[in-house]
């Protein structure tokens, strides 16, 4: 299957800006994947998502969504994507269901009717089903004004899914949500992806959210500086190591030297884990150990290492 998102040499320079907000990035996303775009504030993530969703024109480069060019076939692209913006974009004067209804009509799914009960049965079923999944079925008639941040996000997800988009864009969707709401949101999104095969394109600051991604790109200052699966990024940039110590540290030190194991000495002895792994290492040490602490890098470690490295490169 061809990629559902294809980005080729994308450049965006805002009017009157002196530097490119997006500086020649290329990537592709396979259908059904969860793709994450990471990066610090100002990296160009929102600019990228705005171009991919046709609300902003690129300065240069090619972007195709579900086979349609974002510049020449904007309307076709819009039909295939759902978007959850960084800042909620609901009409607070309307009820939750009216927001969904207006969206459904704008997407040409159903004719407009003045009341919910007047809408076609298929629409009512779709709304009630999604509301049940999102646990919002009792709040559909309430004005959005009265909603909490978590409810607003849930409503936006319902709205964005009503037209069965092939790609769902989420621009830092969990900002301002409490941990409980955030976890619920992810469970719902996982369900949606499994059920409909929706591709999810996510930008986030939260590294643990990106851990679930099939594929991710790290962006800073408009460029992609690292790309791969979370595991690839972790292993490429941060090594696994083990911290050990013994009552008789001198004996341990000399034994490690004899074995030819390299280590660095801090409060504990830090041994990088090579190809042999921890089992092999521990078996070969005879000195009684008092501490063995295995360290596996998180994506956050990798992310910080990548961002830190680029900043160092740029200052030198």
């Amino acid at each position, binding site marked *: 299957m061809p990629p559902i998102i294809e980005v080729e040499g994308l450049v965006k320079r805002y009017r009157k800006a002196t530097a490119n907000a997006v500086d020649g990035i290329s990537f592709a996303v396979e259908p059904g994947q969860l793709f994450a775009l990471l990066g610090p504030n100002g990296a160009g993530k929102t600019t990228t998502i705005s171009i991919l969703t046709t609300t902003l024109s690129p300065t240069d480069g090619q972007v195709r969504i579900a086979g349609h060019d974002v510049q020449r076939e904007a309307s076709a692209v819009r039909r295939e994507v759902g978007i959850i913006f960084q800042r909620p974009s609901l009409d607070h*004067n309307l009820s939750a269901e009216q927001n969904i209804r207006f*969206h459904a009509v704008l997407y040409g799914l159903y004719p407009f009717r003045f009341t919910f009960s007047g809408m076609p049965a298929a629409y009512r079923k779709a709304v009630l089903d999604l509301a049940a999944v999102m646990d919002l079925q009792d709040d559909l008639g309430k004005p959005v004004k009265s909603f909490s941040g978590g409810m607003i996000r849930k409503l936006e997800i319902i709205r964005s899914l009503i037209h069965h988009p092939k790609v769902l864009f989420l621009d830092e969707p969990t900002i301002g949500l409490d941990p409980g709401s955030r976890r619920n949101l992810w469970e719902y999104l996982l369900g949606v992806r499994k059920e409909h095969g929706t591709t999810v394109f996510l930008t986030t600051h939260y590294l643990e959210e990106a851990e679930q991604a099939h594929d991710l790109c790290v962006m800073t200052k408009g460029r992609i500086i690292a790309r791969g699966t979370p595991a690839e990024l972790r292993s490429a940039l941060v090594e696994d190591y083990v911290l050990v110590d013994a009552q008789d540290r001198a004996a341990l030190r000399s034994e490690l030297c004899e074995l030819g194991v390299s280590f660095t000495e801090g409060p504990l002895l830090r041994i990088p884990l090579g190809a042999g792994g921890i089992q092999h290492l521990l078996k070969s040490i005879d000195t009684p150990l008092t501490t063995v602490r295995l360290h596996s890098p998180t994506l956050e470690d990798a992310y910080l290492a990548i961002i830190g490295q680029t900043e160092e490169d740029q200052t030198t």
Partner: protein
Amino acid sequence: MTEINAILTIAYRDLLKLLGDRQRLVLGFIFPVFFIGVLGGSMQANLAQAAGYDFLPFIFTGIFAQTLFQSTTQGIISLIADRENDFSQEMFVSPVSRYSIIFGKILGESSVAMVQGLPIILFGILVGVRPSASQLLGLLLIGIAVCLFGGAFGVLTLSNLKDQRSVGQVVPLIMFPQFFLSGAFVPVKVLPLPLEILSRVSPMRYAVDLTRGTYYAGLPEFGKVVLDPVLLNAVVAAGLFVIFLVAGTTLFVRNERNR
């Protein structure tokens, strides 16, 4: 069909918004009361004899046209507020033509303005304006045209504004002088040349004069009150409507995407 549905939906949303906005509804009633009652009353008492015609219907028709025109213009400019609280993002990522979005918005704001025009007619009758049935019908029909024209003017204005702050600064500057230059509040039959030129470039002038031309048709005061022939006003207003709408929408859409 999709586009028509979308236009109606966008329009309906504006009407719903008005009905939920008590403050705006009440204000919509207070202004005509103030202007027709106070302005019309005082001018009637002081100037009517010198001018040789009844000032009450003059002010009444002027306020009616000015309110409809201005209400629609400002309603369209509220798209900027929509953009800042991000609702317009939702509209602009939908697969609806940008022209349909703008047109739906004009239609919505026009119906909002018409709802606000009703108290003006009621109050006018209350203070002694006596429109005939055909004059009433004429007011309603021409009122719709005035709204659409005001909406197109709003689109052009909108396309040149950046944010709420520039709305606050620029909009009074382009609306307030028109109240006087258009002849809505005061007669502009005779003006010094510089003011005459300014009056002729005020779009609101054509809206107001078109309304009066319709209202006064066949009456003896026609020549004293109405500035230009109805047909001329209609042609100018229609021409400007098309230019404002096309140029405004094109500019607006381009500025939205080419940031």
